[in-house]
């Protein structure tokens, strides 16, 4: 690991003014420190955000929304009773990711900022346009079975590995950031970038900006009774997704009035297409209606390598997740969160 200077500011303002090119903000460190050990990240200065009290609150807002400080630990958010009751699929997605130890250390801001797990991005000896612009993409002719089938480019076929970000995208979360130019809000749909010909530009953050909080709008809480996260993976725990789905419905009198739907592990950002959600409005919650929404969400999907299977897998997972959602949010978190093997217990 390359040597770095260490700073521990006590306020966001101090953290931002400590920033200089070559510096990195440190949250829980579960991703950053790992990448520093293998030489993929080489910050000259680490600005530790761990003592900034203003970043540590979970606030349930009077209008029904929520504001989550960037330094809140993943596990603290998932097990917060009020939060999990209002936004159950966010809690389920968090508990479907990583391990108990990692969730205790990793922060929600860090979860938003985590890097792709593409093997070649994590290997400094491989060409990778995302890590080192202009060097090429080793994944195109390499191990690409779990890489992108949507929104990829010739320059990069990496995926975003986050579980938490998938329901946040479906629910229209807003990211509050602060930097040298002040504070601003970024809708999550605009936060992560598709690769295009500049995959090194991963997020909308400007140099020196940091994530301060994640806000969930009040209308997102209206889906609490029918909201599930489904994660398909090679083993049922402690594995990244092959495909994941956040599916939330509002159902009245046997008809869907509103739907929210997003896919994970298929692109460099959580994949949401509002046209797919609009197809579900006014429909009965049937497999046929769900299949039409799946087709709309997957419009334009194409293999970037040996990963064509992910398109059919996603199609089926979307239908399954919508069925699980229609059956009702379980009263208690399933023993295996986000698993299709978990016992399905109806909320009603």
């Amino acid at each position: 690991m390359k040597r770095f200077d260490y700073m521990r500011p006590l306020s966001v303002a101090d953290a931002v003014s400590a920033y200089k090119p070559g510096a990195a903000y440190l949250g829980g460190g579960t991703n950053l420190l790992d990448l520093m050990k293998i030489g993929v990240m080489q910050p000259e200065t680490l600005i530790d955000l761990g003592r900034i009290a203003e970043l540590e609150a979970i606030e349930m807002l009077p209008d029904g929304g929520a504001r989550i400080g960037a330094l809140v630990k993943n596990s603290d958010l998932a097990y917060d009773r009020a939060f999990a009751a209002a936004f159950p699929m966010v809690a389920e997605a968090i508990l479907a990711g990583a391990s108990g130890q990692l969730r205790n250390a990793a922060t929600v801001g860090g979860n938003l900022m985590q890097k792709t797990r593409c093997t070649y991005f994590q290997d400094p000896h491989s060409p990778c346009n995302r890590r080192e612009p202009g060097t090429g993409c080793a994944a195109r002719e390499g191990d690409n079975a779990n890489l992108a089938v949507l929104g990829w480019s010739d320059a990069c076929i990496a995926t975003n590995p986050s579980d938490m970000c998938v329901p946040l995208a479906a629910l229209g979360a807003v990211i509050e950031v602060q930097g040298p130019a002040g504070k601003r809000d970024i809708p999550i749909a605009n936060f992560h970038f598709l690769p295009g010909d500049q995959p090194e530009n991963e997020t909308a953050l400007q140099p020196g900006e940091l994530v301060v909080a994640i806000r969930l709008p009040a209308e997102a809480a209206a889906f609490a009774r029918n909201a599930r996260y489904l994660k398909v993976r090679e083993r049922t725990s402690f594995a990244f997704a092959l495909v994941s789905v956040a599916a939330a419905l509002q159902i009245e009198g046997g008809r869907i009035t509103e739907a929210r739907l997003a896919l994970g592990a298929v692109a460099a950002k959580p994949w949401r297409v509002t046209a797919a959600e609009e197809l579900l409005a006014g429909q009965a919650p049937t497999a046929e209606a769900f299949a039409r929404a799946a087709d709309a969400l997957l419009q334009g999907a194409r293999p970037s390598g040996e990963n064509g299977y992910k398109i059919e897998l996603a199609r089926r997972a979307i239908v399954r997740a919508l069925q699980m959602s229609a059956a009702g949010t379980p009263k208690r978190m399933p023993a295996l969160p986000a698993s299709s093997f978990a016992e399905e217990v109806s909320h009603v």
Partner: protein
Amino acid sequence: MSYSISLTVNGDQRRVELDDPRVTLLDLLRERLDLTGTKKGCDRGQCGACTVLVDGRRVNSCLSLAVTLDGADITTIEGLANGDTLHPVQAAFIEHDGFQCGYCTPGQIMSAVGLIAEGHAGDDPERVREGMSGNLCRCAAYHGITEAVVDATRRMTETTERKSA
């Protein structure tokens, strides 16, 4: 530049001068504080062998920089037993054959102690397996590990109930 931190390690106050901010908690414990019970497996947060409690919560000590932990309360496997009396989780691992070679065991036990304190798994074997998935055992002693954690959870719950009765 050197960094001075103070830690409570297994109940003892320790003052540590770090001449290098790159030292992880794992390396601090093993190389500088002579507490080699905590094991280095993958050094990347994937195997759980380095699990310790920081302020009562289980974390991977390999992914934690010591310099960030000024003022923290650390518990390692060396701090669990009370003299010759084993912690209920340690006793249960022996009773249920929760290990073979033993290399992952300190991490397994610290993870189990953390899991039980979190209180979300109870004595449901499926929830225990899920809750312990951050700890790999290459000997595959998982059956005994799950039994040990379930049994220890029950015993510790009974003790708590008896105390509060």
